[in-house]
């Protein structure tokens, strides 16, 4: 079976400072050689901190930003080769839901018009049809039909995010790209949206690309996981496999740093002081980009970009030192000591 979405060797650098003649003097390497696949009806979680390029990657695959290199295939179709109306139609097969529910809905539109916008784009004009579809879509995301006549500013963050999701679903998509879609929401609201996403997947068989900085959240929703650091995927595999046996030191650092909402567990965790921050994407470190903070770094890490190493079926990590990966969780995982950079 072919994957629903297949992304290969995607790369994008943005010009940063420019000279007086408009030529770029420096480049922000937002995405460097990223490949992944999303299967039908499954969820791929993409985790990374700021500057990891995860949001840029999402925009690249919809062609919202033109990549410098790489291919994106949705089913059998080459997305990046499409232009004009063809590209627009392809985007509707994998629409996006954005992080900020307060700015992702046009404040001058009522909810009915917002959720049916994709239908009008494909030529539906009949008001009764649009009205009926709006009610169906609201029902689908757990909102009462009366919301149809409201403006976004009357709604809470969670309600708005449901509206944004309804708009995406109006496209009858194969895949929904969720870019930090629940990051701005309160804990209780977020849980409702997460459950809704899972219900919709069960019911409609839609695939998700779930982009988040929150590892605990990604663990709950994703079948597969990709960890990004400075524009590259450093580790990927089935979520539980990666969690049980994180092979890349960065993945281990991320797992160790996420606070656990239980004071007994949280305070008992042996967490050596973590130092250093993600370097600027303007000057990506040579070799393995993580070597500046990595406890395992050796000379080879500073000079040579690590290859992808298979850890288990479907589980790979880009690290020179995967042989030092400890076994499954039953053995104590030595937490990495991150060295300072600044």
């Amino acid at each position: 079976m072919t994957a629903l979405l297949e992304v290969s060797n995607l790369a994008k650098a943005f010009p940063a400072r420019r000279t007086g003649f408009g030529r770029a003097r420096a480049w922000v390497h937002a995405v460097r050689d990223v490949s992944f696949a999303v299967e039908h009806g499954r969820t791929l979680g993409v985790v990374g901190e700021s500057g990891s390029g995860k949001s840029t990657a999402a925009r690249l695959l919809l062609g919202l930003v033109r990549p410098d290199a790489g291919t994106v295939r949705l089913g059998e179709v080459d997305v990046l080769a499409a232009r004009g109306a063809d590209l627009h139609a392809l985007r509707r097969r994998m629409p996006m839901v954005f992080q900020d529910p307060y700015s992702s809905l046009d404040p001058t539109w009522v909810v009915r018009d917002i959720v049916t916008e994709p239908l009008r784009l494909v030529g539906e004009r009949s008001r009764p049809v649009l009205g009926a579809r709006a009610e169906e879509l609201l029902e689908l995301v757990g909102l009462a039909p009366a919301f149809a006549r409201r403006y976004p500013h009357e709604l809470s963050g969670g309600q708005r995010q449901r509206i944004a999701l309804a708009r995406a679903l109006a496209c009858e998509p194969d895949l929904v790209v969720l870019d930090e879609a629940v990051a701005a929401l309160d804990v209780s609201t977020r849980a409702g949206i997460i459950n809704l996403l899972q219900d919709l997947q069960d019911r409609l068989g839609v695939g998700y690309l779930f982009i988040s900085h929150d590892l605990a959240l990604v663990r709950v929703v994703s079948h597969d996981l990709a960890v990004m650091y400075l524009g590259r995927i450093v580790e990927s595999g089935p979520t539980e496999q990666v969690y049980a046996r994180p092979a890349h030191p960065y993945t281990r650092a991320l797992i160790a740093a996420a606070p656990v909402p239980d004071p007994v567990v949280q305070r008992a965790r042996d967490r050596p002081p973590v130092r250093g921050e993600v370097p600027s994407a303007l000057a990506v470190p040579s070799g393995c980009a993580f070597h500046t903070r990595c406890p395992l770094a050796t000379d080879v890490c500073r000079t040579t970009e690590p290859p992808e190493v298979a850890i288990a079926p479907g589980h790979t990590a880009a690290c020179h030192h995967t042989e030092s990966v400890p076994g499954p969780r039953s053995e104590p995982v030595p937490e990495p000591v991150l060295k300072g950079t600044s």
Partner: protein
Amino acid sequence: MTALVEKALPATPPESAWRAFRRRFGRQRLAVVMAGVLGVLVLIAVLAPWITPQDPNAQTLLDRLDAPGAEHWLGADDLGRDVASRLIVATRVTIYAGALATVVSMVIGLPFGLLAGYLRGWTDAVLSRIADALMAIPPLLFAMAIVAVLGRGVTNAMIAIGIVTAPRFFRMARGVALVIREETYIEAARSIGCPTSTIVRTHVLPNMASPLIVQVSITMGFAILFEAGLSFLGLGVQPPDASWGSMLQRSTQFAGEAPWLVLLPGLAILLTVLALNTVGDAVRDSVGRENRRLV
């Protein structure tokens, strides 16, 4: 199915956008009065031919420079014409002139401004330079040149004024479009395959409603002042027709003997421009959260 169903609507039933606008506008007393003034002026302009107490062009030389009184409520001018009647017909000319210049200005400036701001890059660079060049032309001089080519008259003069003021609309539209294009709802529209033209028409334009209203009111006031200036120079309205500007022009030489001839049209101009600006500002302050952010 969905475990958490959000049936709860906001607690307060929504005030319609229009009612909320009226409530907020109503709190600004001066603006309400000024809106009333504008309403009356428009009414006068529309009804002008039927409500003049006397024939505005009838010359009664015996009444020359009559002071305001029973015969002529607001006095008579140097040719003995009834000032009240002339002011009324002049209202029509003045409002026509202001509206014409504003419409021309907006029709030229707005679309190009939207394009420049939304597309940026070369389009923006070229259009902005043209706008800058247009801005550098003194409006009065340009209007004189146009009138010299196309002939005298309010219409030609006001088209000229519309052209030179178009960069104001251009700059406003460009500036606002630059802000709006960065909004997530624009990216959201792109992500569901909305074509650029549709985005500009359905998302960018409605979100600039309130700065647009302000710009319209300012430009209208500006155009009325220019009409007065042009008529003062004899390039606008042609005798025996009257505009406030031309009345002012004729009367300056009698300012000593008949000050009302200067004061009345001057006050009319002042009041109208003031009313336009006050109402424009109040409208801006009264638009709801739907599109307040950009003002």
